[in-house]
């Protein structure tokens, strides 16, 4: 309807702008949707666990009673099982993962490194229930006949390896978790190591350092924040890992000094008991456990992401 040339141009510019604004608005809405879903998650966990939050208060976190019949619920055995299995997993997966990452970034020729990294990525893609299946039918019998007796004979004087051993238990769960977290530690650490500037290595080598000294005293410290980030990322995965742990930990809400003994984890008890939990208090207690797990993983993940972002920024300056 514009009558002048100037007017037509203005109208066209306005429709162009509206198109862009509309596209911006639509995509913004979906991006905001991510925030909304996350807020909804927090709010739902918070509100549906109100019953036990009010009933038990902070005592919930420190009580080790778990009795659905008398409706007394405490989170301690599950927090303990979650933390101990994840800690065991890291004890194995940190050396394994960091060692492999060093090999893949510092030693292996690019083609071999890429091929092996591809295989590591496939390892990360295996569903957790498959790890559980294998752990249940392969690792548990192995631990029952060889691993547990061996540990009892050699280290049995320690309370860590005393008592009954059935193959199921905290140690077995830790081993499975370690295999599941290694790929995360490898791929993020490898990226952090690859981001270390070449000059750092050349300078150390020129000063007469061996390959290993260069790696361990120069390259690894340079990438330490990224490596730490990868470990935290692995830890968050281990804390929240459900199926594989449920299938081998023994599902027994108790705190035992022995690693060979059975235990329980937060994720496992939710997976195992939630669909059949009768009564509002029982359900609320399980949801509150979910809330605890949520905060645990969010804090660890948040730290991991900050560290990884910090190293990639440092590396990209090169």
């Amino acid at each position: 309807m514009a009558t002048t040339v100037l007017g037509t141009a203005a109208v066209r510019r306005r429709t162009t702008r509206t198109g862009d604004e509309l596209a911006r608005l639509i995509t913004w809405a979906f991006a905001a949707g991510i925030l909304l879903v996350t807020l909804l998650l927090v709010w739902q966990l918070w509100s549906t666990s109100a019953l036990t939050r009010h009933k038990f208060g902070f005592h919930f976190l420190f009580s080790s009673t778990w009795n659905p019949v008398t409706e007394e619920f405490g989170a301690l055995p599950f927090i303990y099982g979650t933390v101990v299995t994840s800690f065991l997993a890291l004890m194995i997966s940190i050396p394994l993962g960091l060692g492999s990452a060093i090999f893949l970034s510092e030693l292996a020729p690019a083609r071999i490194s890429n091929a092996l990294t591809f295989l590591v990525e496939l390892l990360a893609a295996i569903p957790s229930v498959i790890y559980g299946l294998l752990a249940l039918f392969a690792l548990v019998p192995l631990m029952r006949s060889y691993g547990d007796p061996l540990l009892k004979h050699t280290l049995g004087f320690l309370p860590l390896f005393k008592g009954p051993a059935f193959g199921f238990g905290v140690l077995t769960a830790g081993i499975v978790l370690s295999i599941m977290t290694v790929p995360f530690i490898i791929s993020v650490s490898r990226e952090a190591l690859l981001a270390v500037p070449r000059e750092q290595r050349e300078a150390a080598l020129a000063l007469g350092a061996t390959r290993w000294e260069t790696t361990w005293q120069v390259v690894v410290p340079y990438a330490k924040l990224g490596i730490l980030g990868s470990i935290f990322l692995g830890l968050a995965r281990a804390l929240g890992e459900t199926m594989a742990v449920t299938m081998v930990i023994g599902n027994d809400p108790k705190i035992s000094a022995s690693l060979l003994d059975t235990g329980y984890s937060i994720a496992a008890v939710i997976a195992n008991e939630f669909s059949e939990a009768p009564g509002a208090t029982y359900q609320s207690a399980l949801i509150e456990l979910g809330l605890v797990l949520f905060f645990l993983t969010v804090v660890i993940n948040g730290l991991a992401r900050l560290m990884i972002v910090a190293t990639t920024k440092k590396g990209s300056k090169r």
Partner: protein
Amino acid sequence: MMSGNRVWRKSVNAVMLSVTAVFTILTVSSLFLILGYLVFYGGRSLDWNFFTKLPLPPGEVGGGMASAIVGSAEIVGVAALIGLPVGFLAGIYLSEFEDKRFAPIVRYVADLLNGIPSVVVGLLAWALVVVPTKTFSALAGSIALSVMLIPIVTRQTEQFLREVPLSLREGALALGANKWKTIATVVVPAGSKGILTGMILGVARIAGESAPLLFTAFSNQFWGGGLTQPTASLPVMIYTHAISAYDDWHRQAWAAGLVLIAMVLTANILARLVLAKGISVPRS
């Protein structure tokens, strides 16, 4: 003294470098060990009935998991229908319409959402769908899986769109295209291979999830009745069959494990080696 020190340093060098190689071999061989076990036990257990028959009651020999295969396809398909477009559009926002304050928050929250344990995501879907409708349903499972899929797709889409050279965008804008047209006809097609790879990997990841389905889609011994009924899925069936006390159910669990891993790994290998040839796929 000097030479002794050098010998020591050289041997430490050799030992430590070999140790890293051994660790790598150990890690990678665990993949082959897992695959070997699955092919051996799963291959022995897999038969035609597995794909065509319904599960039999515990204790009876035979039957299959036809309903779980269809159920998995249904749950994952609906999850993809919800999750892929949402994640894709949010990814476009992060890469193309980024504003300095809002985008970093969304990016960070997407990463956090990606790290939340799947079983907790299942609790959300339970509260949102199962409680109001008063029944376990395939839809509840799909909602849970889509919440897991969205952040994966968002971040991958963003990452691949960022790799599209600025000059392509400038060229389109200089020819008079407006921004959304530039995005739709130039930027997204240029990044499409990577985006598609990310989507396939994301769907493959949620297809193997069982924890969030346990109390959303639940399970079903019979053919599910559509989206509003409890529905069996392959990962949940692996779990319930593996922890049961029946040999024939264990056999079925191995067979299901082989089928699931074959699907997941095929998707991964196709996406990474064929579609994403030459582009680096970030870990999700």
